[in-house]
């Protein structure tokens, strides 16, 4: 009698608990999206060769038709363009010529001024000598 009462009590209490676990499992598994197992496997194994192939193809599709011709044209244009070193050399040569011209004209002006001053001094000396000779 006691056993049957205990049995009926445990059955009554276990049944809702079992049900609750089943509900929990059902709720949790409803959270998993379709193809869960495949995705787990894919994640565990990492990207497949197919994914890498798709990546390469996707990159290759970004090139517009006539890519090779465009590259050759750009390479030709780049070859015709003066290099950085030659541009630098031309700039340096231009700067040197300008500096040379400035120094030349500056020197010429100094020489002219010197000549003028010397001529003035010669005139003063000549005038002084003239005064000396024609003294009292």
């Amino acid at each position, binding site marked *: 009698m006691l056993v049957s009462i205990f049995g009926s009590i445990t059955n009554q209490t276990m049944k809702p608990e079992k049900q609750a676990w089943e509900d929990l499992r059902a709720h949790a598994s409803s959270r998993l*999206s379709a193809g869960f197992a495949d*995705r787990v496997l*894919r*994640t*565990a194994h*990492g*990207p*497949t060769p*197919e*994914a*890498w192939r*798709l*990546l*390469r*193809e*996707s*990159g*290759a599709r*970004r*090139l*517009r038709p006539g*890519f*090779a*011709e*465009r*590259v*050759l044209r*750009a*390479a030709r244009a*780049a*070859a015709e363009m003066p290099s950085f070193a030659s541009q630098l050399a031309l700039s340096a040569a231009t700067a040197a010529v300008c500096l040379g011209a400035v120094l030349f004209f500056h020197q010429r002006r100094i020489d002219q001024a010197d000549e003028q001053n010397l001529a003035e001094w010669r005139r003063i000396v000549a005038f002084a000598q003239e005064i000396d000779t024609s003294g009292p």
Partner: protein
Amino acid sequence: MESTPPTALADLVRRAQKGDEVAQRELIVSYQHRVAGFVFAMTNRSDYVEDLSQQVFIKMIRALDRLQAPAQFESWLFRLARNTCIDQLRRQKLRRIFLPFGEEHENIPEPAGAVGTEELDALRHALGQLRPQDRALLALVQEGRSHAEIAEVLSTSVAAVKARLHRAREHLREHYQPDHET
């Protein structure tokens, strides 16, 4: 992955080195898709692919006469591609320091499915989480480069390449979630 027999490739490279435009064009056509795929894997940006690929091939034409061993052409070309991409990513990073508001305009993510499948989006997302050097490593392996060739490209030892590759693969796997939201 299309490939040219080694002797034919070496001949083609020699002709291109002498300035033969037909050979240069053939080299570009043979490798443009692989280089574009490599650039895309490295930068994760569709709008960079054509420009950077063009830069790589212009550098190739200009520096081809300095290539000592024509048989090494492929690894040399992918070294050029790697360095070009890394330079671009560095420049982009520097630009962000000086123009902090540029980032939001520069990194507009392509919506999921805009580029390809869920798997491709996941791979792009995972690659985006890696350092450019690790991306280059994985992309070079995908291009069929051997550990020894990669070691030469990166100026390091084969053992170091293996260790870095192992770490890069682990990181990629950690971030590879095919159901992620881009």
